[in-house]
């Protein structure tokens, strides 16, 4: 009997029941096994040769997989949940992540009912492929600093989208460089000579006939990224506009609209409405953190049980490295963290539902707290997971450095999470502003709620010193 079979005999709990806890329900366990098998048995989805492929070959291969997946989804009439599972098991960052994960949610969150009726059917059928172009070459976390402009021209009933400076070049959006036909572009809305700040616009960037960039649009890939595989399977893009005209109703108008004569009209819906979509995205990021960390921990735990080093007694095998306290003290907290993040993700799913239902009732009271806590949770989970994957690599000794360990590629694919949605340290400073504001309001008798409720008890927590 080999080491792992021996290990499994010593388990003191029902593994199948624990799988249900991890997945959330028996149906989810079954779904994972069914779709996992479907992907693993399809030669198109082969990935063991990925690390030896050059960038172009890698990218083209991912396009092939995405197209093949789409054909399976359609021919087998997969449900949304099944399709999502299928895409995640293919296990390669692709334009589809942004199309389904950012483009569509942005339209749902920021478009009016009419706009959703116009754009969502096109997006669902992938008649158009979209991405999310917010970040600029010189502007990352600070959205207020974006420079791209969308100036309304009442004479033609159009916005003129323009890139006024080099630093205003859109930079990093996934799927933008070579695949997307449309982008949600964040730009400063200017009408009647007044700047109303950053708003979201749907801008077509490529022809639906021949896929060439439209006149006035400069779009390209930003180049090779960190590691073998990783985000190199995807076309992160750059984008510039030279006075590109778009129809007035391409402004996503749930929060504010511009009338035919150029008048800016807030809809009365708070701008924080966009936070609902952010909670959705961050919930997904936390769930991803638990998944990625669990993959690294699985590799490190199993190999630590197989690997033997030192500690021999005469005639006996060497000691399993998992029995060393130094190994346990680095590995077991990461194992516990993977489970902790899974429960956190489940809670964030509830939080998203709660926020969404409140928004529908016009209740925006919990948004600041939810916005702060989810940005902070995104920050700590992604940082810990990236560090945890690297720790797992080291826990596998020299073999962890081999791509055959799966860990280098896992790290390369995961580590960008530390800087998307805002740099992790900057996100923590946003949380800090919320905490300081909450404390400053205590004197006025305002009771903190939600995850900050304990601060209402600050005097007690301090007094016990």
């Amino acid at each position, binding site marked *: 009997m080999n080491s792992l079979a021996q290990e499994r005999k010593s388990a003191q709990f029902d593994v199948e029941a624990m799988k249900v806890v991890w997945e959330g329900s028996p149906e989810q366990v079954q779904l994972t096994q069914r779709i996992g098998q479907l992907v693993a048995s399809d030669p198109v989805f082969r990935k063991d040769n990925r690390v030896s492929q050059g960038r172009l070959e890698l990218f083209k291969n991912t396009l092939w997989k995405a197209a093949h997946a789409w054909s399976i989804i359609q021919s087998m009439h997969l449900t949304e949940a099944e399709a999502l599972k299928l895409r995640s098991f293919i296990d390669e960052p692709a334009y589809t992540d942004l199309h389904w994960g950012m483009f569509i949610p942005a339209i749902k969150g920021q478009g009016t009912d009419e706009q959703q009726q116009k754009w969502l059917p096109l997006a669902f059928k992938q008649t158009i492929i979209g991405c999310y172009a917010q970040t600029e070459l010189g502007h990352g976390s600070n959205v207020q600093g974006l420079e791209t402009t969308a100036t309304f021209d009442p004479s033609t009933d159009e916005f003129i989208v323009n890139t006024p400076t080099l630093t205003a070049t859109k930079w990093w959006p996934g799927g933008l460089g070579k695949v997307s036909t449309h982008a949600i572009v964040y730009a400063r809305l200017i009408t009647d000579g007044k700047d109303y700040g950053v708003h979201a616009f749907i801008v077509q960037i490529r022809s639906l006939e021949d896929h060439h960039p439209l006149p006035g649009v400069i779009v390209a890939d930003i180049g090779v990224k960190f590691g073998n595989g990783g985000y190199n399977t995807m076309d992160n893009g750059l984008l510039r506009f030279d006075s590109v005209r778009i129809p007035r109703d391409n402004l996503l108008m749930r929060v504010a609209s511009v009338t035919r004569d150029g008048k800016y009209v807030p809809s009365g819906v708070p701008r924080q409405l966009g936070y609902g979509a952010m909670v959705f995205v961050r919930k997904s990021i936390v769930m991803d953190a638990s998944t990625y960390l669990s993959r690294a921990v*699985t590799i490190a735990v199993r190999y630590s049980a197989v690997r033997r080093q030192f500690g021999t007694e005469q005639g006996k095998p060497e000691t399993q490295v998992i029995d060393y306290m130094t190994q346990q003290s680095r590995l077991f907290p990461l194992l516990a963290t993977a489970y902790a993040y899974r429960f956190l993700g489940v809670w964030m799913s509830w939080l998203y539902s709660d926020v969404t239902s409140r928004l529908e009732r016009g209740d925006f009271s919990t948004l600041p707290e939810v916005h702060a806590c989810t940005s*902070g949770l995104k920050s700590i989970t992604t940082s810990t997971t990236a560090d945890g994957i690297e720790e797992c690599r080291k826990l596998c000794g020299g073999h962890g450095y081999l791509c055959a360990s799966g860990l280098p590629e896992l790290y390369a694919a995961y580590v960008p999470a530390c800087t998307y949605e805002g740099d992790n340290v900057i996100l923590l400073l946003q949380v800090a502003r919320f905490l300081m504001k909450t404390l400053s309001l205590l004197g006025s008798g305002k009771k903190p709620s939600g995850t900050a409720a304990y601060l209402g008890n600050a005097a007690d927590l301090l007094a016990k010193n």
Partner: protein
Amino acid sequence: CPVTKERDWINLDTLQHAFEARSARLSVKCATQIAAASNQEAGFSEFSSELVDASRAHCELIVVTRFMEALKKEIPGRGVREQLQILCNIYALSLVTARAGDFLVTGYLSSEQLDLAKGQLRSLFRELRPNAVALVDSFNHSDYYLGSTLGRFDGNVYENLYNDALKDPMNASPVTEGYEEYIRPVLKR
């Protein structure tokens, strides 16, 4: 902190209180420092590192409490709750020891109590050890999804590392490309 012996550390109320106290104390300390600065923005900038620590403490408290909340629900299956309880304690106590500076500097813990936390953590590791492989099996990751020779379900690591190495394109021929141009001339010299 009421801890006087190692086992006191695996009380969920004790752990939650410790995390709440750490977070509240770090936040209040920052607020006090900022209030004493010449203006609020300057203070925020000056103490940004401390603010990051306070925010991290707040977020880690949320994760710990969500894990604890999950344990309050019905969890079917032989031994499942017990394993999750161990994992929750490990998660929380490993943070207590990793962030010892926060707990010590705010005066919530003594160094003796920190030693007790480390001792309890070692005990928890020993409890977890027989279940470690089964706990990662519970993630339900297939060999295809893991894409790792080291993490194979069957544990046949070394045979596969060896055989796969021989199949690598670098080993397609016994004599490497480039030998005639770049190795042979060197050897001849």
